[in-house]
């Protein structure tokens, strides 16, 4: 054996045998013995025999004939007949899942409450009020100027009573909060607007 040649092993032998079987099977499934070309004939003769090939081919074709015959093979599974049990299984599985889910859910969540909401007609102010922030600004400016009028050195700020500082901050926050809450509320009910003195009416 030359050094370049692979030493035949049992695994190689098995693999080679399988390759031969695969090739023979491909021929068996596609051609009758008389349809094989000379090379294929040679291959079949080398690894099998004409008689064996024909017997195997007969088994394959015989199965076709057997299937077409009236005698139903006990192993035949009609794909269509599989569909119905499959659908049935799917439906019953889904139903079982729903029942299980309902069973696992707490009592309070089991029933679905449907509230019938009667359409309600509401009269709303159609008056759109553009928020006048001038008053707010003025108020803030006043407070600011009050603080500003004092000596604003850090020392002086410290001298402003804490409650006054807190009140200012609290007031500012309250106004901001009210402003957000009252968006869309009629001007007559607007807490922010009511909070400040009305702006002088400017006649048109």
């Amino acid at each position: 054996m030359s050094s370049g040649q692979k030493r035949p092993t049992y695994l190689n032998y098995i693999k080679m045998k399988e390759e031969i079987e695969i090739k023979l099977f491909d021929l068996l499934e596609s051609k009758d013995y008389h349809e094989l070309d000379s090379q294929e004939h040679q291959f079949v003769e080398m690894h099998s025999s004409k008689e064996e090939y024909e017997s195997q081919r007969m088994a394959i074709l015989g199965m076709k004939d057997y299937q077409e015959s009236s005698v139903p093979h006990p192993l035949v599974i009609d794909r269509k007949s599989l569909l119905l049990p499959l659908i049935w299984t799917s439906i019953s599985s889904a139903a079982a899942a729903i029942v299980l889910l309902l069973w696992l859910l707490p009592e309070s969540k089991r029933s679905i409450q449907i509230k019938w909401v009667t359409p309600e007609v509401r009269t709303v102010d159609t008056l759109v009020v553009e928020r006048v922030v001038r008053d707010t600004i003025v108020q803030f400016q006043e407070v600011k100027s009050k603080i500003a009028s004092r000596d604003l050195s850090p020392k002086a700020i410290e001298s402003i009573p804490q409650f006054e500082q807190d009140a200012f901050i609290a007031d500012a926050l309250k106004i901001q909060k009210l402003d957000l809450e009252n968006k869309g509320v009629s001007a007559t009910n607007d807490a922010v607007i009511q909070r400040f003195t009305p702006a002088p009416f400017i006649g048109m």
Partner: protein
Amino acid sequence: MFTIASNMAKTELKRKSRFSDTGDFEAVTWSPDEYTKERFHYQLSKAIDNLDELHRSVFVLRYLNQLSLKEISEVKEIPIGTVKSRLFKATKEVGHELYEFRSKETNVFKLY
């Protein structure tokens, strides 16, 4: 779905382990020189029945359930090459059982 089919085939195989038990051919007897289609089918059934599970399942899936090689490979979870190899062995064994019909093929069915 094919896995279900395979499992059902297996269950069916276990339940009806022998074709002769099904009674399909039980009462039928043939004289030695009688090569009828029925006898051929009987012989074929017997041959399939005699196959071991490994080869019978692929043979049944291929030629009775008419699954493609790829489908069988998926159902059995084996490479297509192995499917072919098993089918070759199965046809070889079944072919042996049908050997006597080879020369009588015209009476049974047309091979060519």
